[in-house]
């Protein structure tokens, strides 16, 4: 095992996170190294016990006090590590390049967070592009929750980012099962207060998920090759064949985002999105029951009724916020795309959806949804 304090490769912007397991089953952040302008901060891990507490976890000290000896092997509490991805100045200046590699060992859980939106500062020239590359490898049974704040590209900025997630082949006994992934990628129109409306030189963001061959079980017979499972690329590049203003491609949206979900940890959340999408009122249909006033009731509402009320309330709010969204099952993923007239509206909606379903906070603690506040 390498020394966590060892000087890492000295390339600027490089970072490395290795989450491994100390025998018998204690997840530890084996490596957290970084170089300017990237900065990684790992606060102490939290304990999550999904069955007992619906919401947040407790601290490490509590765990050692005795929660450890839970009889139920499946549901017992576990450690969730967190790493904040920060950059000096809260963003990237022209020409900055970030290159972050993350590895999650079997059955570990990691939260990646940012602190405030990632600002992309003005570039002197369209050809000077700030870049961010992130590569995360998830071993079987591990789970990554990456709900960052939106990227905020300022006017005349140029930015390209790529996120590559590798799911290591989880077939075979005792592998730990399919890795779970919950990643959000969203971008807004810039500094709205200054009147910026998608006024950057260029912006590109690509998310790819690959199935990686299992290195320890090299089977020569099969052509062992990584296979593309999902690719989602947003290219807001200048083009001669489109209107010169990016805002004309955005149909009055000021924020656009993609949420990618897969794996057993996020199955319930994915199903929630799909069910809610299915339950959306039809576009262009007459809304017959909009103003139905229900008689005052004395009996308390059932949970179903409460959910129904929340749903109607959210759908009303979606209209107000000009929120458009879709959810679809793409292979073993659930892919959610959304856009809204204001960043706040999108945040409100996403936070509502994720918190109402509740499994993210249940499985990772409240910290995982910090950016949705």
């Amino acid at each position: 095992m390498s020394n966590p304090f060892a000087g890492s490769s000295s390339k600027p912007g490089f970072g490395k996170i290795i989450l491994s397991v100390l025998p018998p089953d204690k997840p530890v952040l084996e490596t957290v190294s970084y170089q300017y302008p990237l900065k990684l901060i790992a606060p102490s891990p939290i304990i999550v016990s999904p069955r007992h507490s619906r919401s947040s976890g407790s601290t490490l000290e509590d765990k050692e006090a005795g929660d450890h000896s839970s009889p139920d092997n499946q549901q017992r509490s576990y450690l969730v590590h967190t790493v904040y991805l920060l950059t000096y100045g809260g963003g990237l200046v022209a020409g900055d390049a970030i290159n972050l590699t993350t590895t999650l060992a079997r059955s570990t859980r990691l939260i990646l967070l940012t602190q405030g939106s990632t600002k992309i500062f003005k570039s002197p020239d369209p050809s000077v592009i700030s870049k961010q590359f992130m590569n995360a490898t998830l071993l079987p049974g591990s789970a990554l929750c990456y709900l960052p704040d939106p990227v905020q590209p300022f006017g005349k900025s140029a930015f390209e980012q790529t996120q590559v997630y590798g799911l290591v082949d989880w077939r075979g006994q005792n592998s730990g099962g399919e890795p779970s992934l919950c990643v959000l990628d969203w971008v807004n129109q810039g500094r709205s207060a200054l009147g910026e409306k998608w006024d950057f030189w260029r912006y590109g963001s690509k998310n790819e998920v690959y199935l990686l061959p299992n290195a320890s079980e090299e089977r020569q017979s099969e052509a062992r090759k990584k296979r593309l499972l999902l690719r989602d690329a947003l290219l807001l590049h200048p083009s001669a064949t489109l209107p010169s203003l990016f805002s004309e491609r955005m149909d009055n949206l000021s924020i656009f985002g993609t949420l990618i979900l897969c794996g057993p940890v996020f199955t319930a959340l994915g199903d929630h999105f799909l069910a809610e999408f299915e339950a959306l009122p039809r576009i262009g249909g007459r809304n017959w029951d909009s103003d139905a006033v229900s008689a005052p009731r004395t009996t308390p509402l059932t949970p179903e009724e409460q959910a129904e009320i929340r749903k109607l309330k959210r759908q009303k709010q979606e209209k107000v916020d000009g929120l458009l969204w879709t959810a679809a099952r793409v292979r073993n993923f659930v892919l959610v795309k959304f856009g809204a007239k204001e960043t706040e509206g999108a945040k409100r909606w996403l936070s509502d959806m994720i918190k109402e379903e509740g499994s993210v906070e249940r499985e990772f603690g409240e910290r995982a949804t910090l950016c949705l506040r």
Partner: protein
Amino acid sequence: MNPLEPDQQALKTEIADLEQRLQNARQRLNPPHAANGSTPPIPNPPLPVPDPTAVSTLHTLLLLADSALPLGSFAFSSGLESFLAHHPATSVNGSSKPQFQSQSQPQSSLLSTFLPLSLSTLASTSLPYVLAAYREPDRLLELDNDFDASTPCTVARRASTTQGRALLAVWERSFRGHYSGEHITDSTTATASPFPTSPEGQREENDNDNTALKALKTYQSHLHLHPTSLSPSPFTPTPCTHYAPLYGLLCHLLRLPAHTTAYLFLFSHARTVVSAAVRASVLGPYQAQAVLAGAELRERIEGLVWEWEGRGTEEAGQTVPVVDLWVGRHEKLYSRIFNS
């Protein structure tokens, strides 16, 4: 003065001119060093008069440009219907009025907004796959997988796979016998081919065709083994019959030049969208023809082909993100006349 004289003079000039043009044309047809000169792209070597390749290319082009192809494409609007529903002609009030559309403009302006966005989306998401399959037919299965991985929603996926399956069926039932048979058997005796070529280029081309045919055969046998399903296993590459890669491969088999393939792919899309617009009562049939005939569309398609033909599939992506929302939300429309 004889009034005929000037006329005769004019006629003489005209004859001289015509003779000059005929000579020029002959020269262009038979350049002095055709064989050693700059080599044109492989599928179209220069040939003596009459040029059967040109004729058969034209014939193939007309076949593929038929608005009936791919069979059933009339059922898809590629998001137009959803776009219209999201931009109703009678807007509620100023604040919620989309910027794309203003009351004073006629309905047809909606199409002139939508069509460029839709074409750009198609060029950036699909054209690299069309051309990759065209250039490297043996990557068909991989391209089909990658395209499937890049298709963001059920509606778009359904539209693509349905049309791909239809295209495959047209090839299988209608084209294959006429375009492929002779090439697989023996490369030296392929005289009955509809594409007579110069002997030196023939072997290479046949090898090329064999690769493409083999790729298609492998693909079809996979298809037979794993009938397409909505959520294929992440471990086994399952053919999904996506339209774009199959289109590229088919054009390769039919020996259309790459550039023509790309142009035709985008043009067909424009035609399908415009025809959907007619049926959605956004514009009249004459206006529709005017849109298709317009220089604007021609330049746009040329520009898009130029912009995207050099880019690989890993560079493909969505240039107009809101199109994904419109297409995805098509399912939520109250009334629908199209499948996408």
